[in-house]
């Protein structure tokens, strides 16, 4: 199916190729993580403001604003991640303000990590990390559905084996 894809159309923001988004469950997971970190602070500030000193309301508002900003940011970040399997490489795009595009040839893949913590597992997603011989060149693909991630890992491992190049 991928053979019809034209690698020439790989661009930072073009939509000529069937770029695939990550699972929207990633957004939920990240929102939960963010809330777990920030909501206690909001509550603490509110309690302090009520009990001790009204100026603590400022803190509460600031943290709540941070929370709102985080919620907005996560939505944008998650929707900006897209990826595609080309005949010879996997390409991952990320970011809106700071856009980046990583292209990893299958032959360069050393190993692939599929990780899924309890929270991610409860939402049925996993994150795929691609390792090459260079620690900085790896790409991460967070938030793939579990079976999709496993299938991708299997597929890429097989292709990597077939196109393996020495260092």
């Amino acid at each position, binding site marked *: 199916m991928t053979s019809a894809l034209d*690698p*020439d159309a*790989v*661009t*930072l923001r073009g939509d000529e190729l069937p770029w695939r988004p990550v699972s929207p469950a990633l957004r939920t997971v990240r929102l939960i993580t963010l809330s777990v970190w920030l909501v206690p602070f909001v509550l603490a500030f509110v309690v302090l403001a009520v009990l001790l000193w009204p100026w603590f309301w400022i803190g509460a508002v600031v943290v709540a604003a941070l929370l709102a900003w985080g919620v907005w940011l996560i939505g944008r970040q998650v929707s900006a991640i897209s990826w595609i399997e080309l005949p*010879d*490489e996997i390409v991952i795009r990320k970011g809106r*303000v*700071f*856009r*980046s*595009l*990583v*292209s*990893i*040839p299958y*032959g*360069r893949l050393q190993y692939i990590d599929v990780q899924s913590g309890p929270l991610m597992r409860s939402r049925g997603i996993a994150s795929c990390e691609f390792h*090459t*011989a*260079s*620690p*900085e*060149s*790896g*790409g991460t693909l967070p938030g793939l559905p579990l079976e999709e991630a496993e299938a991708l890992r299997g597929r890429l491992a097989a292709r990597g*084996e*077939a*196109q*393996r*190049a*020495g*260092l």
Partner: protein
Amino acid sequence: MPVSDPRMPAPDPRMPAANPGLPRQVVPESRPGSNTPLNEWQHLHPLSPLVRGGVVGIAVIGYAATQFVDDLLRGMGGGEPEDPSEGGIRDGLGFLLDHPLATSGVLLLALLVVGLVGWLSWRFAKFRVAAGQIELRKGWLFREHRQVPLERVQAIEISRPLLAQLTGLSQVIVQSAGGGDSHLKLAFLGARRADEVRRELIALAGRRDEVRPAVRVDGTDPSGATPSGTPATASVPSAIDPATGRPATVPSTGLLDPDEGREVLRVPNSRLFVATILHGGTIFLGAVALVAASLALAAYGSSLEVLTGAAIALPAIGPLAFGIVVNRVGELLKHGNFRLGDTGTAARVQHGLTDKRTTTIPLHRIQAVAMVQPLWWRPFGWWRVNVNVAGIGHDPTGEAGGDDTTVLPVGTLDQALEVLALLDPVISADDLRQAALGEGGEPGWTTVSERARSLDPLGWRRNGFAVSAHSLMVRTGRLWRRVSVMPHARVQSLTLSQGPLDRRLDLATVTLVSTPGPVSVQVQHLEAGTAAGLLRDEAARSRAARQISGSACTTPEVPSQLEPPPPHEER
């Protein structure tokens, strides 16, 4: 005491067969320095624990010995009256001092224990080269077994720390691709044995490497499963060494003695000294000193405030100055006596004033090359050449080859070009000269967009890239010149990125990711279209280069190989 005299220099380690009671692994024992074949388990040099213990060990032993003699004498003399002003530890030791016999007993016991531990660590450390792997076992309580497949060997290094030099020992460090701690260190062997081991390892690693081109084509792992892909291509023997592009008339097997390689160049220590001093840190220090001196002169006899101010400021920069000086001296010690040799298939780097090191880097392991000219070196026309080799460099622990990625610490442009020609004969020297000195507008070079002028007011005219059939060249820096060369076949992955400023100017940055090391290949602020094109073309080129594995790079001596700028640029 079960062991009669286990102190390390004792003669018994040379006859370990006298102690056959160890449970497992009845191995043919070997005498160090003998010509035991490498495929049998063998010990390191018996002095190694002592040298590994290093200065600390010697200091402790020395201290203990002097104490011992001192106490003995004291005991014989009947003991002098104690100095009442001495308290604390002296009091605590009073008992021991009063009983010289007990003291010497304790000291002797401590020596015995240290010796026993050393002896055990020697007794349990064994290595061999067998079945395509080099293996090292060590540890007595905590066993450790480390093995490195020979085809993963990136470079082999011989290092002689000062103490080892005094005892005539060397350590062999086998560098493999992998995380920071993936080295295998044979510490220590006799100097001659170390050379033999290195030579054999290089030969073995090279021999396995000869198989690589075919393996690469049919796409199986070198560990030798049957070719599953296209066996037809696998049978075609490659007449060209894939990585170096030179005809493989000299196989890298034992035919060529690595020690008899051609010496390419030496770096005179005087030049290295000047070059080491010409450094941002020292120049900063000099400027500070100058300012301080002139201030002091101006303030002489007039205002005390300025003088006290200077007196306060000086200690403040003291630690900084100390750090800079230590750093520079370290650099000087590291790169002193620098020699670069060519063994035909590997570059041989010898360096070190106190800690002599010899690193052998197989040429086809080199991932990327960079020439750098700091601003201060410009009047002299000096350059430094660094390489990326998988597994070397970026080792935070530093000890195993912290900076063996420098293949030329300082040299003229011609020398730098010579080094690059050695490392990668396919690169044309003219192209490199253009890359090094070019200021923009040369044919074949795609420079940064003029829109990047506001982001990079000095470099925008010069920064850019050029493509040859074999590699991508990137030049940057008008003041701080830098040239990076990366063969297409070595690209690990490609990155295209764009920040908000870039986006406003419709620019983008392309990075060719290499293995960790001092060389990074990045073209910043290209026109977005050019950048996308570069990404696409480079992906295709590296794919092709990986597949044909070198048959494209045939003619080393052409004057210029730069391809015309890619067509998408005209769009």
